[in-house]
């Protein structure tokens, strides 16, 4: 699938709405194994994204992705800021060569891993971005793929981020960043379905 400006805007709007609706739930998840701010951080971020996109009215995909990245990097305040921000920035850079979504997400995931140093199984948002990117390459991204990826973080011991300080105590809880990343990709499926 190729990403267009129009599709991207409905994708990011859908995601923003979802984050705002689920703000308290995301922060609750974070209070179990982190500092309880993930929903608030990300809601602040997507609100800034909405303001930025409305104010600047980007005329192409690269500009829209870059504005998204800048808003997230400057407004989130927690790890999700540089992480999501870097992911969108890498998509922006890659979008000047290709708009193939699988390629954009490959670059995004690589950027995310470089920024946070997390590998598969470290109980972070990377555990969602990796399988989603792989599924997109095979053109078989479904809700099931996303749900499974999010759920896979529950039994893991956290190796990165605040939850890693809890060691074994992090077992049995979903990773909040994995859950919010699940919302991002569910929103993508919704945007894809729109005509």
């Amino acid at each position, binding site marked *: 699938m190729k990403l267009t400006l129009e599709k991207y805007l409905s994708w990011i709007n859908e995601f923003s709405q979802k984050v705002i609706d689920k703000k308290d739930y995301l922060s609750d998840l974070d209070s179990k194994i982190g500092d309880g701010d993930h929903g608030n951080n990300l809601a602040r971020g997507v609100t800034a994204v909405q303001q930025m996109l409305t104010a600047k009215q980007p005329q192409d995909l690269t500009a829209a992705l870059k504005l998204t990245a800048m808003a997230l990097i*400057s407004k989130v*305040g927690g*790890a999700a800021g540089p992480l999501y921000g870097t992911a969108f920035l890498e998509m922006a850079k890659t979008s000047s060569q290709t708009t193939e979504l699988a390629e954009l997400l490959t670059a995004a995931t690589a950027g995310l891993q470089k920024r946070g140093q997390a590998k598969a199984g470290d109980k972070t948002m990377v555990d969602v971005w990796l399988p989603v990117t792989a599924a997109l390459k095979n053109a078989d991204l479904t809700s099931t793929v996303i749900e499974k990826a999010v759920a896979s973080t529950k039994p893991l011991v956290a190796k990165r981020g605040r939850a890693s300080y809890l060691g074994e105590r992090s077992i049995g809880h979903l990773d909040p960043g994995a859950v919010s990343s699940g919302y991002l990709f569910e929103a993508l499926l919704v945007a894809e379905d729109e005509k």
Partner: protein
Amino acid sequence: MKYGILIVSHVPEIAAGVPRLIQQVAKDVAITSAGGTDENEIGTSLEKIQQAVEQNAGSEILAFYDLGSARMNLEMAAELATKKLRIYDVALIEGAYVAASLLQAQVGLPAIEKQLAPLKIKNQE
């Protein structure tokens, strides 16, 4: 001045307190800090870090931080800055203290890094 020290913490009071502690043994060393989010909530701010890099009289920055996003934002600041930033994954207070007191004593960077090495406690497998 060649080297300056930068402290980044999630909390404004820690970002202000560590320089207070280490400046006592390093009167002539440039020390700046960035703490909390733009709203002074708990977190880190790329913009505050960039300002602290700019304001530092050092032309090369030795950076010390507390947790997670502090390092990621420091890395982004390093990518955007014209000054060189060296980020140390060491215990914040002890590491900054070692760097400050040795810089004050005009010890060179290789010897400082040797002294910092056993204090590494972050970002490792």
